[in-house]
C-alpha cells in the first residue's frame, strides 16, 4: 500500500482546522490524540488517508483529521469504507464508529466487512451507550443498565465485540482503552499494518451518559490486576507485581499466581496472535472481570487474502485473457448483422 514518505509527518500535521466539539472529559479526545500519533508513524502521505464514519459522537472524528474524510449516515460506515477501499486499494482507509453505529443499525455491514476481510481499520468506540442521542442503551450495554429508554433496566443480553468479530470470521481483533495513549498508539499502528479487516474495540468513557462504566476494569487503581496486555510471542503475565498469569485448564483458561503451587513463568500460555484456529482467541477475547483479567492489545492477527486485493487481481487476470479491450470491441462482439 501507498508510497513511502520521505519527510516524516508529525501528529500535528493531522490536526484539521475544525473546532473539536466533544464534551470536556470525553474519551474521544484521547483516541484522537493516539490516532494522530499512530498515523504519523506509518510513513504514508496525508492525502492517502480516508477516514469514514457513521453518525454518533465518535463519528465526528473525521472532521478533526486533516485527511480525506466522510462523515456519512448512521450505521453505514462499513459499507462506505468497503466502497472506498475496493475502489482504491492504494488508500489507507479507517472507519470510525460507535457501539450503536457499528453494532445496532450498522451490524450487518460490520459483519460483512469482517467476513470479506476488506483491508480497512475499524476503530469501534465502545462507551456502551448512545451518546449523541443523549443516553439510550446500546447493544453493548450491560444487562440491567438504567437509561432513558430502559427506565427499569435493560433486559437484553449484550454483544461482545470480540465474539462477534470472530463469529463473523474476523482475522484481526484488538482491544485498548481510550486514555492509554501508549498502548492505543501501538495497537492502532498494528491495526494499520495488518492486511485485512482490523477491528479495534476502544473502551471509551462517556462522561455524560455512562460515566466510569469501564472503571471497574480499567480504573487507575485496579487496571494492572484486572487487565492483561497481550503481546504476540510473550507469556500471558499480568498483575501489579507481574505475578499472575494464564494457563490452560482442560477446555478453559485459568488465572494462576506465579510461585503458588509451584507454577513458574514457564508454565504460562504464550500468546500466539497469528494462529488461524480461533479457539484460543475466542476465549481470550471473552475473558471478563471478575473471573479473568480483560485482555488488551492485539488478541488476534491472522494473515489472509484481502477482499480488495482479490477483486483487483481477478480484474487484472480477466483483462489479460480477454479479447475485448475497449467498448468498441464489446459493441461488435457476438451476433451482429449489417444492414446496407
Amino acid at each position, binding site marked *: 500500500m501507498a508510497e513511502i514518505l520521505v519527510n516524516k509527518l508529525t501528529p500535528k500535521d493531522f490536526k*484539521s482546522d*475544525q473546532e473539536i466539539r466533544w464534551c470536556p472529559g470525553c474519551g474521544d479526545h484521547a483516541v484522537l490524540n493516539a490516532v494522530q500519533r499512530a498515523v504519523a508513524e506509518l510513513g504514508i*502521505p*496525508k*492525502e*492517502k488517508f*480516508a477516514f*469514514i464514519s457513521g*453518525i454518533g459522537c465518535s463519528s465526528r472524528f*473525521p*472532521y478533526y*483529521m*486533516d*485527511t*480525506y*474524510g*466522510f*462523515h*456519512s*449516515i448512521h450505521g*453505514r460506515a462499513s*459499507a*462506505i*469504507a*468497503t*466502497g*472506498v*477501499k*475496493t*475502489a*482504491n486499494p*492504494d*488508500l489507507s482507509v479507517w472507519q470510525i464508529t460507535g457501539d450503536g453505529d457499528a453494532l445496532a443499525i450498522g451490524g*450487518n*455491514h460490520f459483519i*460483512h466487512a469482517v467476513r470479506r476481510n476488506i483491508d480497512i481499520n475499524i476503530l469501534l468506540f465502545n462507551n456502551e451507550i448512545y451518546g449523541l442521542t443523549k443516553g439510550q442503551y446500546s447493544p453493548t450495554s450491560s444487562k440491567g443498565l438504567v437509561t432513558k429508554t430502559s427506565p427499569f433496566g435493560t433486559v437484553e443480553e449484550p454483544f461482545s465485540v470480540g465474539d462477534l468479530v470472530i463469529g463473523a470470521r474476523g482475522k484481526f481483533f484488538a482491544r485498548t482503552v481510550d486514555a492509554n495513549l501508549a498502548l492505543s498508539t501501538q495497537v492502532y499502528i498494528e491495526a494499520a499494518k495488518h492486511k485485512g479487516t482490523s477491528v479495534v474495540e476502544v473502551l471509551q468513557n462517556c462522561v455524560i451518559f455512562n460515566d466510569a462504566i469501564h472503571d471497574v476494569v480499567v480504573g487507575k487503581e485496579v487496571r494492572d490486576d484486572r487487565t492483561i496486555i497481550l503481546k504476540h510471542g510473550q507469556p500471558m503475565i499480568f498483575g501489579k507485581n507481574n505475578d499472575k498469569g494464564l494457563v490452560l485448564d482442560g477446555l478453559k483458561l485459568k488465572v494462576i499466581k506465579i510461585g503458588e503451587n509451584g507454577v513458574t513463568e514457564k508454565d504460562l500460555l504464550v500468546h500466539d496472535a497469528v494462529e488461524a484456529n480461533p479457539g484460543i482467541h475466542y476465549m481470550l477475547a471473552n475473558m471478563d472481570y471478575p473471573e479473568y483479567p480483560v485482555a488488551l492489545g492485539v488478541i488476534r492477527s491472522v494473515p489472509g487474502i484481502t477482499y480488495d486485493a482479490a*477483486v*483487483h487481481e*481477478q*480484474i487484472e487476470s*480477466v*483483462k489479460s*485473457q*480477454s479479447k*475485448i*479491450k*475497449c*467498448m*468498441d470491441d*464489446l*459493441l*461488435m462482439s*457476438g*451476433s*451482429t*448483422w*449489417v*444492414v*446496407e
Partner: protein
Amino acid sequence: MIKRSQVIEKEEVVIRFSGDSGDGMQLTGTLFSDTAALFGNDLSTFPDYPAEIRAPQGTVGGVSGFQVHLGHSEINTPGDFSDVLVAMNPAAIKANIKWVKDGGTIIFDKDNFTEKNIEKAGYEKDPIAEEKLDGYNIIDAPISSMVKEALKDFGLDPKSALRTKNMFALGMVYWLFDRKLDYTEKYFEKKFHNKPGIAEANKVALRAGYYYGETIEALRPVYKILPAPIAKGTYRNIAGNSAAAWGFMAAAEKANLQIFIGSYPITPATGILEELAAHKDLGVISVQAEDEIAGICTALGASFAGKLAITTTSGPGLALKSEAIGLAVMTELPIVIVDVQRGGPSTGLPTKTEQADLFQALFGRNGECPVVVIAASTPSDCFKFAYEAAKIAVEHMTPVILLSDSYLANGTEPWRIPEMKDLPAINPPIAESGSVPFHPYKRDCEKLSRYWAIPGTKGLEHRIGGLEKTTKGTVSYVPENHEHMVNIRDEKVKRVANFIPDIDVYGKQEGDLLVVGWGGSYGYLITAVRELQAEGRSVSLVNFNYINPLPRNVKDVFSRFKNILVCELNLGQFAGYLRMEHQEFAYEQLNKVQGLPFTIRDIKEKCIKILEDK
C-alpha cells in the same frame, strides 16, 4: 428453398411461443428473433415467465411465454395480439387464447394433450372445443412422437429426445415464415461443441419440424415479411438490462473513469449487475453487496474515491436506498441509481411491469432532496439513457435516478451499434491539486456543480458529510446558510434543464390531442398514435425521458394542443407531477395497473373517445 403453394406478404406479424417452464420457450423465441433480425426485419420481443423458478408442471401458473413481433416497417412493441400461437401443452392455450387474433393460427403438440394435462390446465376434455376455436387455423401436430421417431437412431433416452420438441416446433414456424435454418444450426454447433451428438439431434429435430410443415397441408398459407427499410449500419439484438450495462461502460470509457457497481440482486434488475460483473475485461469493479443499502453505500464510497458509481435495483430496493440517496444529495457526489420498476406495492408482482415508482423516485426522501430523474423508453435506448444518466451525474455532481421497467429490461429489439467516437464527451469536474485550500462546496458558476477532489490527490484533503455545511465544508447550523444551501441544491438540479434536449413531438406540432407518456410505454403509445394519424386523426405524441427537470419547452408544446392525455401504468403519478409543475393545463388520464403493458387498442379507444366527446 422449397416451392410453396401460396405465399402471403404481410407488413408485420406477432408470434407467441408458449409452453411449460421447462419446455425451452425462451430459447426458441430468442432463436426465432435472431433469425428474423438477421434477415432484416424490425422486431420487438417480450419474454413472460412465472415468478416461480419451476412452477407446477402443466398448470396455467407454470406457462412460460415469449412473444416476437416482426415487421417490414418500424416495430415498437411486442404486439397486443398474436397471429400465431405455438402451444406446447393445454395450459399454454388456456393462458394465451385471449391474446390470439380471431382466426389466428394455433400450433400445438397433440401428443401432449393427455387427459391429465387437459385437466391440469382446467379444461374438461377438449380445449379446442371448449374454447370454441372453429374459426381458427388449428394445427395439431404430433410433435412428441415425431421427435422421438426422428431421433430414434441417436441412442438418446426418451427424456433427452423430448427436450428437442421445441426445436421441432421452431422448425415448423421457420417453414411458416419462410426462414433459413442456418443461423440456428450454427447456434447448436457452438453451444454443444463438446456434445456433437446433442447438436446433431437438435438440428435433426429442427429440420424434421421444417419438413413436417412442408408436408402437411394445414400449414398453408405461408407468410412472407420482407425486410424492414432500416438505417444502414451494424445491428445487434439487445435487451434493456444489457443495454443499460453497456451504456454505463461506454460512459465510463468516455469519461475516463473506472466503473464501480454496488448492488444487491433483485428481479428484474439483476441482469444489469450480472452483465457488468461479466465485464471485468473492461475493468468493471462489481460488488455484490449484503443488501441494497450496502449496494448504494459501497457505490457512494467509490464515488467519493473517484469512480463512476452505479447501483441498480427495483422498487423495494429503491425504498431501502432512500436514506443514502439523501446523503448523496447532501455530499453532492455523482451516482446513478437504476430502478427497474416492477409491479408493486411491497413485493407486489415481482416479474411483472409497472410505472408506479415515479413518485418514489421524485419525492421519496426526507427533507428537500432533489435528484435528477430520467427514464428509458425502449430496450435499446436503455443504452442511451444509462450513458446520459452517467454523464449528467458526473458533470453536474448529482445523483441521477434512471427508471427502467420489467418490460424494457427483458424485452429486446434490434439496435444499430454506435461507435464510441460518436458519443458525446463526458467531462467530470475533477479538482486539481493546488496551493489554495480546497473548499468542497465551491461551485462551477454555470452548472452550480461542486468540484470532485479525489482521495489520493495531494493538497485537496477535505471532509464531507450528511450534516449541513458551509461552502468551506464546515458544519453549520446558521439558518441563512441552510436556506442558501437548500436553494442551491434545488437550483443545481433545475439547471440541468439547460443541458438536455427539448422534448420532441411525434406528429403535427399542434392539434386536437396530445398523447403524453413517459419511459417504457413509448412503444405502445407511438404505435397507437401512428395508427390514429394514419386514420386521419389530429393526434400527436410526446414521450418524456427527462422527468426532473422537465425539458424547457414543455409549456410551449402543451399549449399548442386542445387536449392532453397522460397515459401511464399507474394511477396517475406523472399526471399529478405535471399538475404540480404545469398547473395551467388540463390533463386527461389513461391508467392501467395490471402488471402488463398497454394494448394499442386501449390507447386508441381512449383517444377516439376524447376526440369525439369534444
